[in-house]
């Protein structure tokens, strides 16, 4: 008797799922601020919280919004839009503060709207477009996403280091 289609299929079927070719990816914390959709590596984000009372710092660069008290710590708050020369952030009821930790440096950033965690395939990352001005050095890449549109991936350690240097040299 001829084997049935099912029997033929089973004869060639593997015993277990074949391993998919590894496609490396990275996890990013994705948020919107102003007109920008931005992502930072999730390993650099310690916490997301509501915005508390902000204390301005006199004689500080415009991108340094001030400091906030958070869990017994005084955390400097950086306005990414101002830092990147893309406008100015405005804290609203929907705004959230994400606390970053890059090599022990704790800095807060304002997000208009938190989108969440997304895994980005490394192969999908495109280099920052040339001619992006001073912001280019702070970009880890750009991803075109069906869900999010153009997503700019930020290199947070470079931003924190630069913010620190800019605020020291006055």
């Amino acid at each position: 008797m001829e084997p049935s289609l099912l029997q033929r299929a089973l004869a060639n079927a593997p015993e277990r799922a074949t391993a998919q070719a590894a496609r490396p990816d990275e996890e990013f914390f994705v948020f919107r601020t102003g007109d920008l959709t931005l992502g930072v590596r999730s390993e650099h984000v310690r916490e997301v919280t509501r915005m508390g009372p902000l204390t301005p710092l006199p004689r500080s660069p415009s991108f340094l919004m001030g400091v906030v008290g958070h869990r017994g710590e005084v955390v400097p708050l950086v306005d990414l839009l101002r830092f990147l020369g893309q406008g100015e952030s405005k804290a609203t009821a929907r705004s959230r503060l994400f606390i970053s930790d890059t090599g022990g440096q704790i800095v807060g950033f304002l997000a208009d709207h938190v989108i969440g965690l997304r895994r980005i395939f490394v192969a999908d990352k495109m280099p920052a477009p040339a001619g992006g001005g001073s912001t280019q050095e702070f970009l880890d890449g750009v991803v075109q996403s069906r869900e999010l549109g153009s997503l700019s991936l930020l290199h947070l350690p470079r931003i924190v280091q630069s913010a620190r240097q800019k605020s020291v040299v006055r």
Partner: protein
Amino acid sequence: MMTGVIDLVVFEVNGTKYAVDLGQVRRIDIDEPTESIGQPLGAPARGHRALVFSVEQNAERRLAIDQVLGVSRVPITSLRKMPTAVHAAPFSIGAWLDGEETVLLVDLPSMISAP
């Protein structure tokens, strides 16, 4: 770990609250201040008060402010130094965590050399 309390003069300049060690304040001028060391904390809205403090050789200097909110006795454990991630002006020496609020601690003599 240090324990104890410290007395802070809490004052306001243009709607922002600051605090300074009571030991630095010689007196509070309630007349219109005729001179000020400048506006290191920004321009006061009214500037009807001044914190008078001593500098070298017992000379006096004045910082024009808007109002003194009082003297607060605060636990040392509620004080924090400025975060290292972003440097502030040299006269911004730390912060007092007053519940939800963060009050900047300033050093008056350091304001003299502030640009």
